């Protein structure tokens, strides 16, 4: 019998602290598998955010830095400018990237910083206990929006992929999800392509991954994926928002 699937060497043997069924774990795998398959783990430097994935530095089997909340793109810029031949990625949640870190991600994209950002959008602040994120859906409850997000008070969800796609420095921006094996395979292709374009020096690349937070959504892991499918995807449509390779003739 031949092994058709096993844990990637891109991950360490550490057990993750993620809640049961949290799709952060799936996304970790995809990043790690991509790096392994591209053969670049040894020259990769990753940046962990502040959020549930704060401990990602213990999970990815490559050099890692833990950045201040929201500042991963700036840290990645520092690393990449010193090590232009290395692969540099950030892994960030929606609070990290789309709230406190808005300026840093917009400007990394504007500069065409040659990094890859994995943006895990779970429409909530997982780590701190379910507060409203900028991506929280209108009507969705959160511990700081106990009656549900009110459009008139707190606005509507921010769509980062769409925003960053307006910038010339962005080479590749795609939104994917991991709610089924086929979505997972598609997400993996997107992530791998982003790394490839980074290695070609094409510019800033970001994959936004719609992810679940069963704990703070108050759903079972399986129901959380259904909820994501039914509620999040309509607001955050999947697809490619920017692809420099398609702009060429």
């Amino acid at each position: 019998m031949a092994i058709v699937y096993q844990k990637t060497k891109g991950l360490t043997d550490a057990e993750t602290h993620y809640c049961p069924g949290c799709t952060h774990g799936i996304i970790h795998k995809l990043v790690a598998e991509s790096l392994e398959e591209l053969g670049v783990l040894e020259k990769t430097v990753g940046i962990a955010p502040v959020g549930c994935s704060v401990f990602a530095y213990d999970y990815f089997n490559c050099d890692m830095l833990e950045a201040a909340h929201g500042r991963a793109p700036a840290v990645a810029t520092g690393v990449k400018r010193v090590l232009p031949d290395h692969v540099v990625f950030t892994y960030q949640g929606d609070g990290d990237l789309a709230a406190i870190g808005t300026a840093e991600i917009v400007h990394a994209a504007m500069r065409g910083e040659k990094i890859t950002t994995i943006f895990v959008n779970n429409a909530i602040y997982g780590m701190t206990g379910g507060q409203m994120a900028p991506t929280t859906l209108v009507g969705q409850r959160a511990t700081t929006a106990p009656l549900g997000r009110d459009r008139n008070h707190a606005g509507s969800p921010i769509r980062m992929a769409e925003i960053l796609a307006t910038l010339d420095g962005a080479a590749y921006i795609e939104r994917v999800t991991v709610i089924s094996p086929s979505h997972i395979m598609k997400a993996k292709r997107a992530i791998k392509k982003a790394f490839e374009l980074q290695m070609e020096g094409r510019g800033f690349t970001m994959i936004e991954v719609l992810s679940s937070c069963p704990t703070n959504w108050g759903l079972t892991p399986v129901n959380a994926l259904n909820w994501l499918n039914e509620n999040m995807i309509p607001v955050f449509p999947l697809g490619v928002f920017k692809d420099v390779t398609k702009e060429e003739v």
Partner: protein
Amino acid sequence: MAKELWKGNEAIAEAAIRAGCRCYFGYPITPQSEIPEYMSLHMPEAGGVFLQSESEIAAINMVYGASGAGARVMTSSSSPGISLKQEGISYMCGAELPGVIVNVMRGGPGLGTIQPAQGDYYQATRGGGNGDYRLIVFAPANIQEVVDLMQEAFELADKYRMPVMMLLDGMIGQMMEPVEWKRPALSPEDLPAKPWATTGTKGERRPNIINSLFINPDACNDHNRHLEEKYQRVIENEQRYEINDADEAEVLFVAYGTPARLARAAARLLGEEGIKAGVFRPITVWPYPYEALHEAASKESVRAVVTVEMSTGQMVDDVRIGVNGIKPVSFVGQAGGVIPTPREVADAARKALGR
């Protein structure tokens, strides 16, 4: 070597490049914008990285990244911009990352004014960020000293794996003085390797991690103990100060940076009236030379200690701690960009002596 006339800010930038710094991230702000401006032209010439960041916060976090990746790296700003870097500085200390941070101070609080001041002493020496940490803080008083200390700043940063701050006032940044480049310029290849840096495992070692999170309180406490021991070593080995004309001095001025020069001018004025005055000038304001100050204040001749600052009185806390009650300590200063005059300083001394 021949002397050259340099503007303070440009000398700082050039000195950093000569100290092997090949990475600069910063954001414009008066009165230090000549530093990024100089870097924007000369850093690429030296084969290094200059990047104007979108903010001071981004700059300090780029420094974090570049330092993690093993580079000698610097940022600079002025007072409000340094305030914004406090979280990042705390992170660098927590993660034990070297780096040099230049603060060319202006008057505050808030937007204040762009004229020279020393209102950020507390922030620099006590840590304006969260948690227990320290920076080595150099407070040179003229451009030659700035230049001489720059290489040392980078060396100590690397040695102790901690950020070092150059604490200047706007005057030093804006003025010109002759400079002699005493030490040979370093190139990055000359520098010791940093085996802890996140430069890719190259398949030769286990992953390196740069991190300030210690979720378990015991681990976090241990880490704090470890940092404390390091700081203790710095306290033991890295205090710098200068004493001038202290023989039989009745009054001892204590001042750093520009006010130390004013204090010396005041001492001359007093000398003309037959009052002997000495000047104790800390060159590191952290670690603070408490014992040396205590000793200087202990001299029998000294009847009063007068602290001179371009602030409403911040270093005076350290002077009080150092003097520890053996002599009366008083304060004279101006804030908000006004520079105290030697006459005002001399008056304060006379008053302290009861004359």
